[in-house]
């Protein structure tokens, strides 16, 4: 019953999406009324919301006649993880994808932009919507019936029932990915929109900022989830799934920077297109089983269709934005230490990092047909390529405080103290410890950046003016956040220590001044899952012992064991204890103890960076002090208050 309703809902949604795309096309080509097209967009969103709601209802009611529920639901799954299991597998997560995409489409439809630019942008967004609705309806319909109806299901992948971040991380990531469709749509719409075209980048920037903030939060949260759940103690493995989220982040970051400078239309278009094309490519990589990954939770037959759509999008973008009109030359030499130059240098570096990550991720796909063997690319490659480039980007970031100063020698003077601080950091840290050249350079670069930012902030706060507004400080906050992330990454990889051993009860495992003593092993058998936990007494630097309990959980329904690490978070370091195995008689336990310094800085810096994006977006949403150039356009129609009219 629910299944039939859901299938019907998807079919209606597909019809609505197709009709909406055609309606917007009529608006763009013949100047038809916007109102009907807006209603179509709202109806499409409503259909996506209905499909999500129906599948959620089926999950909550344990309606195992619905295929997705039979494969991912379970009577023993806690309520929260039943709710989040909507996006624990491909078919359901496509519905969330549609909901988020529909939300962006509805928001974009309600805004008042130059009419033809707006209409063409809506055509692009609607066509993307059509494709994913078609995918969901024909190839990945979660509502298909199952017979015979099972009495219980296996529940979602056990790894996805371990951490409350499961409720936030995927939606946030989708909000980031799909928000990038708006700059992409504007970039494609601009050449088609005639007089309305120029200036699109300024309109797309707030959307890109929101998407970028969500993507930053999503990537950061994914790293945190990986650290807290997967139990291997790391947060980034250069895994295809992780790389797929990093790629659009890199190009979107470059886009946000180039849009700060006027007259870089070619760069704006290329970067805006690249960002969303990389989102589509990442979707193909991670949703098709094309590349082996530690945590690709899906394996589906969608690969060829996704790849086809990626290629179609690439061709359309190239054809539409490929022809360039010459711009009048500008007089004057650009200064080396000017915003225009530094932004471009930084953009080129980010795009190069993106190229490194992209080729590293897709090489296994290329080698299979060419050589017959599956070649893999390990973390070592990225450490030799992407990491040094990232350190260079950090150094370029440190130059920013000098950019707002007109006079060259004054600008250089601004950099003296930060440079001294950076070099001093390298000297001091390098003479007290041996973190290795890459980490040491990262520390120095972070010192350079943070000192420069502090000086810049002091300068700004001294003089009243618009440069003290929170929105203007967003860039500072973002740079500070990223410098903290760099310190955290460099510190945890350079100073992290670990040891593993099989302990008898009463024995102790030491790493530096941290020690764990095995007190006992408890076994608890639940329905459908068994757990073994080790009780360990943790002592750090002579303080009183605390009891920690890392565990191993076995999920019978999926025949998998999950390690649940015990993480002791401190101000400067984490102690990370994993239970690897327990002997039959519970007399011994194999334990891994790791001390991870400065990991907290990664999460704090990531959060700060994500918040900075929202700060900047909020600032652009405020009315400008200068009235924007008036565009001749009919009065925007009153917004249709459909069910999808989000406020």
């Amino acid at each position: 019953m629910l299944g039939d309703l859901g299938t019907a809902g998807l079919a209606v949604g597909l019809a609505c999406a197709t009709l909406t795309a055609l309606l917007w096309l009529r608006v763009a080509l013949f100047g038809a009324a916007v109102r009907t097209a807006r209603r179509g967009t709202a109806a499409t969103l409503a259909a996506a919301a209905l499909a999500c709601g129906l599948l959620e209802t089926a999950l909550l009611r344990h309606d195992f006649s619905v295929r997705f529920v039979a494969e991912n639901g379970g009577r023993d799954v806690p309520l929260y993880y039943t709710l989040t299991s909507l996006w624990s597998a491909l078919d359901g997560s496509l519905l969330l994808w549609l909901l988020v995409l529909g939300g962006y489409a509805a928001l974009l439809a309600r805004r008042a932009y130059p009419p033809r630019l707006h209409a063409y942008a809506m055509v692009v967004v609607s066509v993307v919507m059509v494709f994913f609705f078609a995918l969901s309806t024909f190839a990945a319909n979660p509502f298909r019936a199952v017979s015979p109806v099972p009495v219980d299901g296996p529940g979602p992948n056990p790894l996805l029932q371990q951490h409350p971040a499961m409720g936030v991380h995927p939606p946030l990531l989708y909000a980031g990915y799909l928000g990038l469709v708006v700059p992409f749509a504007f970039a494609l719409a601009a050449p088609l929109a005639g007089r309305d075209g120029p200036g699109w980048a300024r309109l797309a920037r707030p959307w890109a900022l929101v998407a970028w903030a969500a993507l930053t939060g999503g990537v950061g949260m994914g790293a945190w989830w990986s650290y807290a759940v997967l139990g291997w103690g790391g947060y980034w493995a250069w895994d295809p799934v992780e790389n797929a989220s990093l790629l659009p982040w890199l190009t979107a970051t470059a886009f946000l920077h180039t849009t700060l400078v006027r007259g870089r239309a070619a760069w704006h278009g290329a970067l805006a297109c690249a960002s969303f094309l990389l989102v589509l490519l990442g979707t193909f990589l991670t949703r098709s089983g094309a590349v082996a990954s530690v945590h690709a939770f899906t394996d589906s037959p969608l690969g060829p269709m996704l790849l086809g759509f990626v290629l179609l999008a690439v061709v359309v973008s190239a054809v539409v934005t490929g022809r360039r009109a010459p711009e009048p030359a500008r007089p004057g030499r650009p200064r080396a230490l000017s915003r225009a130059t530094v932004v471009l240098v930084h953009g080129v570096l980010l795009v190069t990092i993106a190229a490194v990550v992209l080729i590293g991720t897709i090489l296994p796909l290329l080698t299979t047909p060419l050589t017959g063997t599956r070649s893999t690319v390990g973390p070592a490659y990225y450490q030799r390529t992407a990491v040094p480039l990232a350190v260079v980007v950090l150094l370029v970031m440190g130059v920013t405080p000098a950019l707002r100063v007109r006079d060259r020698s004054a600008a250089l003077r601004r950099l003296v103290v930060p440079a001294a601080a950076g070099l001093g950091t390298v000297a001091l840290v390098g003479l007290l410890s041996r973190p290795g050249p890459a980490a040491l350079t990262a520390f120095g670069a972070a010192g350079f950046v943070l000192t420069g930012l502090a000086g810049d902030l002091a300068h700004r706060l001294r003089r009243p003016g618009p440069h003290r507004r929170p929105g203007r400080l967003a860039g500072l906050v973002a740079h500070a956040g990223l410098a903290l992330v760099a310190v955290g990454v460099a510190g945890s990889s350079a100073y992290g220590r670990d040891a593993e051993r099989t302990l008898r009860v009463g024995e102790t495992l030491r790493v530096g001044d941290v020690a764990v003593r095995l007190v006992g092993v408890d076994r608890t058998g639940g329905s459908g899952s068994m757990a073994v936990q080790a009780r360990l007494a943790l002592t750090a630097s002579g303080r009183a012992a605390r009891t920690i309990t890392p565990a191993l959980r076995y999920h019978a329904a999926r025949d998998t064991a999950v390690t649940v690490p015990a993480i002791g978070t401190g101000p400067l370091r984490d102690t990370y204890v994993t239970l690897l195995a327990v002997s039959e008689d519970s007399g011994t336990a194999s334990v891994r103890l790791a001390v991870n310094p400065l990991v907290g800085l990664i999460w704090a810096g990531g959060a700060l960076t994500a918040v900075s994006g929202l700060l900047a977006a909020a600032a652009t949403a405020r009315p400008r002090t200068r009235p924007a150039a008036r565009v001749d356009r009919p009065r925007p129609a009153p917004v249709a208050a459909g069910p999808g009219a989000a406020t």
Partner: protein
Amino acid sequence: MRWRRVLVALALVTLAAAAGAALARSAGDPGRQDPARAVSAGLRCPACQGESVADSRSPIAAAMRQVVADQLAQGRDGTEVRRWFVQRYGADVLTDPPATGVRLLLWGVPVLTLLAGGYAALRTLRPGAARTGSAAPWTPDARRAWRVASVGVVALVASVAIVADRLDPPARPAPADPVAVALQLAHDLETQDRYDAAAQMYQEALRDRPDDAVRLRLAFALLRAGDGAAAQRTARDVLAREPESPDGLLVLGLAQRNSRSVEAGDTLRHFLAVAPAHPAAAEIRRLLAAGREPTGR
């Protein structure tokens, strides 16, 4: 004013020198990582996805770690151990194989991107030149555009519908054949006279590929490890399916002989009847003729 500048420059140069010394000191440090872990981290676990031997929990990785530790204990250095693995399992066993052939793309693509990006940036910044700007505007004929685009949108939906109908779920390509690696490892362990560990590896391989040839290798390993009872069980298991299996008869006979079983003679004679040209036949004839108790080794 000038002396201030000189002082600032001096301070910076001093700091730079100190930083350079610190970097040199850090670069000269081979790292406090233990060498076995460093080697294992550079080897790919064949039975898992994207994990190194150092991080993986699979039995194969454990055996590979053991091999690494043994070889290091024999006084080989990390490079030699790595080379040994490459010779046996091919360059793909390394997490970071050398850049040859297709792998040159790993360096070529980023370098080309950097060059192209740099060139584009220079062109953008070059003063006085006519620069490429925004995309050239399109002026499509509205009616024709409408026909083409509307047909295109409907075709998109139709093509997804048609393709979706014909697709089967993909077969998962294994990253490498874990069974082959397990067998190779077991063989290596046998050459090092570590028959217990070899038997474990064979059992691991059997779990993925229940194959009688592997079962016989397992039986041999068990026999040499001194577990005659298990060797007999395994050999009988094979003989139940294939009563004339020469290797099965050979292992069974030798195991029975070790356990002083009276059936040993019959089994070994049966073996000779089935496979008179077997490499071990001459040895067995000698044993039977001498009537000595073979040690099974």
